[in-house]
Structures are given as structure tokens and as C-alpha cells.
């Protein structure tokens, strides 16, 4: 029997979730709640409502919370308390405290499943890289470096993403958090966080660039540049290992604007192995099919239908990513204050 679902919010993510539900036998989309009449007008073939309270109805098994950040904690917690399984988009709220509050409710409702939409883990390049890392054929991960950025985009200035009271943060919380989740996916947990942020171009009073440096007790380092001023859409994660390196660049997306997703696999070579030192031959894998949404949602359905514990994109993973964001904001604000004092 499929999971009977309500989708709360029919924006970019709500549309994707509905599309995937319709292509899967594991889900039955029952209801979509959306306050915007223009967005509701795009819907058909499913019950439509402007009343979010409808998601708590008895005929709903699971709720997909696809709202702006400020609504995510409240609806996630209330849905769990109402006996619903919940799939919530990232970020899990506007602050570190939000995810801690959600986890407190999750612990009270231990028979319900809660998963977060850290979708990038399920992209083919990341899945393949993870398998290579876990196989240890290239040794231990030494460091990770990520670039993730965009050029703003259509209606960027008026987007809820750039209203602090709604989003809670800028580009780091909106997009950079995906990269931080990937850092956690590939490495041991990070405990030290240093960061600089700026809002030099868009001036939304939210950061449009963030530089974050991380360290963990195992000696792994990571570095992120998250940007809303890249002008050319760009995604790249480099993973340095003892015996080689992996790079995922480009990203399969609806618009295709991040370029073709590729995984580069390089193997370390020294002068006793080759003349081409420092320039090893690389294998480049080109991916054309993005099954990330399907894989992610099937995992959620499997947990719900077979009463399995959630092990991917859990609240703990959400907490770990939000803790880094929180520490980055704290660290960068301290520096900004110091800088202001010096000036």
C-alpha cells in the first residue's frame, strides 16, 4: 500500500516532490496545500487546498514540508505530534535552535519517521565518490574543498530567501548547507569552524558570500566558498585522499545551468612511476541521469512502509550541518565586529 501524502507548499520543491510521487508506486499524493492562488492554479489531479491545517487529516500518512524556512520547524513538529511521518526540506529551519527543537519533538514521537531533503548526497557523482571512499581504494580522506554558487537569478531580490525574518540566513544557509552536508557525508564530524562572510554586492543584510574552514579531530580539513555572486553557476567538490583524488563538478539539475555532472578520478603518481609527475591520467565519468529525487524518496518510503529507522539525511545529519552554519555565523560576526572596531 503506498504512502498517502500531503505536500505543504507548492513552490520549486513542492513541484518536484509531486512529480516524483506521481512516478512512483510507493506514494499516493492525496493533498497539496498552497496559499498562493497562482501556484494552486497550476495543479490538477490532486486535492488542492489553501488551508495548511488540512495536512493533519486522518487520511494522510506523511507530510512533505516544502515551505519557506520559517514555517518548517512548526509544521514539522506539529505533523509529528499529529502522528504523521515527515519529510522536510532543508534547511531544517532558520537557526540551530530550530533543529534542536525539532529533534526534541522527534524523540517524543519515536514511532514516526523524520527525514530531511539533503538531496545532493543522492546525486550520481556523490554516490559513486562515496562508494570509492568507503572501499578505501584511494585511502583515507585528507581534505575536502567545495565551491557552490549562483548568480542570484530571476526575482532574486524579491525572493523570500533574502528576507532574514523568513530565511534566517543568506547563501550559506540556503545553498552552502548542501555542501556542508556533503563534507559530513565524506568526512568525520567537524568540530572547529572559522568563517568570513560578506554582503558586499546584494546588500540584503544577509551574506552573499561565505568562506568557511573546518577541522576535525582526525585531522581532516575542509573549505567552502558559498556564493551568490559567482555569475556563472558553479558546483565543484574536490576530495583529496592518500592515494589520489576525486572531483565532482557540474550538477544535474532541472535547468542544467550547473553543467554536466562529472566525477574525475585521479590516482597519485610519483616520479618512480611516471614521467608525467603532477599530471596523472584521469578517468572522467559523465552522468546523464539524475535519480537523486527518486532514490531519496524511495528511502523515505522504505522507512515508512517497512518501519525501518531513518539512516540517511536524518535529524542528526541536519543538526550537524546546522551546527557548522551556526558556528560560521558566530565566528564571522565576531570578526565583523572586530573589523568594525578597528575601522
Amino acid at each position, binding site marked *: 500500500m503506498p504512502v498517502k501524502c500531503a505536500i505543504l507548499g507548492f513552490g520549486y520543491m513542492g513541484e518536484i516532490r509531486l512529480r516524483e510521487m506521481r512516478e512512483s508506486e510507493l506514494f499516493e499524493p492525496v493533498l497539496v496545500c498552497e496559499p498562493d492562488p497562482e501556484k494552486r492554479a497550476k495543479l490538477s489531479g490532486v486535492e488542492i487546498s489553501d488551508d495548511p491545517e488540512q495536512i493533519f487529516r486522518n487520511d494522510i500518512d506523511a507530510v512533505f514540508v516544502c515551505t519557506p524556512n520559517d514555517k518548517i520547524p512548526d509544521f514539522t513538529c506539529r505533523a509529528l505530534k499529529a502522528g504523521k511521518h515527515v519529510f522536510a526540506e532543508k534547511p531544517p529551519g532558520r537557526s540551530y535552535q530550530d533543529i534542536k527543537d525539532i529533534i526534541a519533538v522527534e524523540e517524543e514521537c519515536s514511532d514516526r519517521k523524520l527525514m530531511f531533503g539533503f538531496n545532493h548526497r543522492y546525486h*550520481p557523482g556523490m554516490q*559513486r565518490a562515496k*562508494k*570509492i571512499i568507503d*572501499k578505501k581504494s584511494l585511502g583515507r580522506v585528507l581534505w575536502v574543498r567545495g565551491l557552490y554558487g549562483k548568480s542570484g537569478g530571476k526575482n532574486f531580490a524579491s525572493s523570500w530567501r533574502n528576507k532574514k525574518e523568513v530565511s534566517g540566513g543568506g547563501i550559506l544557509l540556503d545553498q552552502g548547507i548542501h555542501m556542508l552536508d556533503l563534507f559530513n557525508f565524506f568526512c568525520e564530524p567537524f568540530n572547529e569552524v572559522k568563517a568570513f562572510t560578506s554582503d558586499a554586492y546584494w546588500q540584503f543584510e544577509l551574506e552573499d558570500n561565505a568562506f568557511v574552514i573546518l577541522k576535525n579531530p582526525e585531522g581532516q580539513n575542509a573549505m567552502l566558498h558559498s556564493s551568490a555572486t559567482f555569475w556563472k553557476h558553479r558546483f565543484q567538490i574536490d576530495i583529496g585522499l592518500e592515494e589520489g583524488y576525486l572531483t565532482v563538478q557540474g550538477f544535474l539539475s532541472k535547468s542544467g545551468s550547473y553543467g554536466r555532472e562529472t566525477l574525475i*578520478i585521479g590516482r597519485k603518481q610519483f616520479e618512480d612511476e611516471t614521467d608525467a609527475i603532477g599530471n596523472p*591520467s*584521469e*578517468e*572522467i*565519468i*559523465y*552522468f*546523464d*541521469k539524475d535519480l537523486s529525487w527518486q532514490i531519496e524518496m524511495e528511502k523515505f518510503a522504505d522507512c515508512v512502509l517497512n518501519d525501518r529507522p531513518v539512516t540517511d539525511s536524518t535529524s542528526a545529519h541536519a543538526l550537524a550541518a546546522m551546527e557548522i552554519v551556526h558556528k560560521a555565523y558566530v565566528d564571522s560576526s565576531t570578526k565583523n565586529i572586530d573589523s568594525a572596531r578597528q575601522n
Partner: protein
Amino acid sequence: MEFSTVFLDVQEKDVRPMDEYNGYLDRLKQDIPNYYAEKGESRMTCPVCNASLSNMHPPGEEFTKNLITYVKCGSCSSVVAKEKFVLSNIQAFFTESESRKYWMTEIWSKTSEARIEKIYQPFVSWAQGRLLDYDFAEALSVAEFLPNQPGLLEGWKRVRSKDNLSAFASCVTTGTNLGESVTIHSIETNEKVDILMSVDGLNRFEDPARALSWAIEHLNPGGLFFFTTTLSTGIETLELGADSYNVLPPDRLFLPSYEGLQALAARAGFEVVEFSTPGMLDAALLRHAEKEGRKLSPTIQYFLNNRSVENDVKEFQSTLQKLRLSAFGRVLLHKKDCKKT
């Protein structure tokens, strides 16, 4: 469907030392009348895409090399031998002919080290990497298609590896250097395996559709078929046509096109997981052809004459790989849990 690009330091001399290779071609001319004179019926349809061969591309295009006539399918652009041959004669050629003996003693002995390092080992590394995506038990059953056997069941050997994949890696690369955990025996007629592997064996089948049907029948559900093949849609073959070095009878009785092979695999019930063309020799072969005075298109001629620095040639080869226009194809097929009907 995925594809990969791989840059390896393979040179023409690594696989085809000129003096010995010419000796092989001389012997082929003597052997072919003995083994391939007896011809069966003419093909009416393309053995790759099943389209009528009356629809040749361009109409009437056919050519003869070493007494074997090829036609280019107007539908899928595969290049195929026009007539069928007697299977036992093909097998006899590969097992007893002077040219094959010469190949083994003169060419293989001089190129085996480079072939193992630059062709077979990368093939095995590729297969091992791809297996990460599949949940097989530790003890895999693997069968390798032997290139000197033209598609007969006895031509497959089975390797049971208790120690993951390292054992079959050494088996594929050397054929003899097997670990203790590996045993080889002829595969039984009704026996199924998890993995089939074939390095450059497929082009010797007279009937590629039969070969793939046979492959899927001998794979367990979820099994994988890793193979390499020479393609008709590589730039060297597209440029040189009948003069192509890759159209080498009788080693290659058919050269499937990139598109035709995908359709053939789908018809057999396979999912095409990866189809790459990681060849390294297309530019070198075109240069070789130019030196020998073979006819090239003005564009390629201009490129060879004016963009000949090493980096340009590398970029050219890189572009061919990215566009799946190299003649060397690398394919991974997956037998789904249920055979397609």
C-alpha cells in the same frame, strides 16, 4: 546512460609493431581463401539493427577487403560482412591458421606487456570500479569470452573467485596467472554466471544478435556484461571507410555503430549502463593514413597539417572521447531482474 573518458599512454607501436603487423597482414591474405571462401547466404538485414540492407548508406556502398565484402547499414551505420560464413571454418581459422599462430608468436609476444598494462589492466580496473554500484556476493562467478574462440559456448571459461575480484583481474590480464582461490573450467551449456567479460571478442561473432542473446541467457538475473568492441562510428572508420585500419577481416566481421549497438543490446533485453569510447589511437591512425597517402577529408587533412602539436592532438582525442567518436568502444550491459519481452 553514462560514459567515461580515460587518457592512457597508448601508442600505435604498443599494440601494432609495424614490421610484425605487416607480416600478419601478408599471412592473412594467404589464409583467408582457405577459411573464408565458403560463403553462406547473403544478408538481407543488418545483424545489428535488423533494418533491410537494401537500404545501404549511401545507396550501393559496399567494399571488399581480403575477399570479404562489407556493407554499411543505411539505418544504423554499422559496417557488416555481407555474406555469412561457416562457423566451424571461423573457429578453425582462429585455432589453426598460420596467421593466427604468427600473431601469437610474433605480435602477442612483443606487445603483451604493453597490452596488459595499457589495455587489459585498465579494463579490469574499470570493471572493478563499476561493480561498486552493484550488490554481488563476495563469491562472484565470472566468465570470460576468449578472443580466439568465435563465440562458441566452449569459448567461455568460468572463474569462481572467493577473494572478491582480484583473482579474476589476474585471470583476464594474463590468462594463466591465477590465484589459489580461482578455478577455471568450461562453462556448462545451461550454466549461468554473474559477470561476463570480453576484450575485443565481440567483433568476431558472425551474428552479434545471437552473441548478445547468448550472453543474456548465460547471465544470472542482475548480471553484468563488460566488453570492448571496435565501432564503425569511430572517426577513423568514418573518415577512411574501406581504407580504415579498423576494418580488418576476418578479425572483425562486423563493426557496430554507437547507435546500432545500443538498439541491439536493448533488443536482447539488456540495459545499457555505460557506453564510452575511451580510444587513444584515432588521431595516430589518421596521421598514419595521411603518410600512406590514403584519402582523408579536407577538414581532417587541414587539422593534421596545421594543428599537429602534442596538446592539440590530445585535445582532439579528448573531444572524440567526449563525443563518443573514438573507434574503441567500452560497454557495460546489465541484465535486469526480469528479461524484457
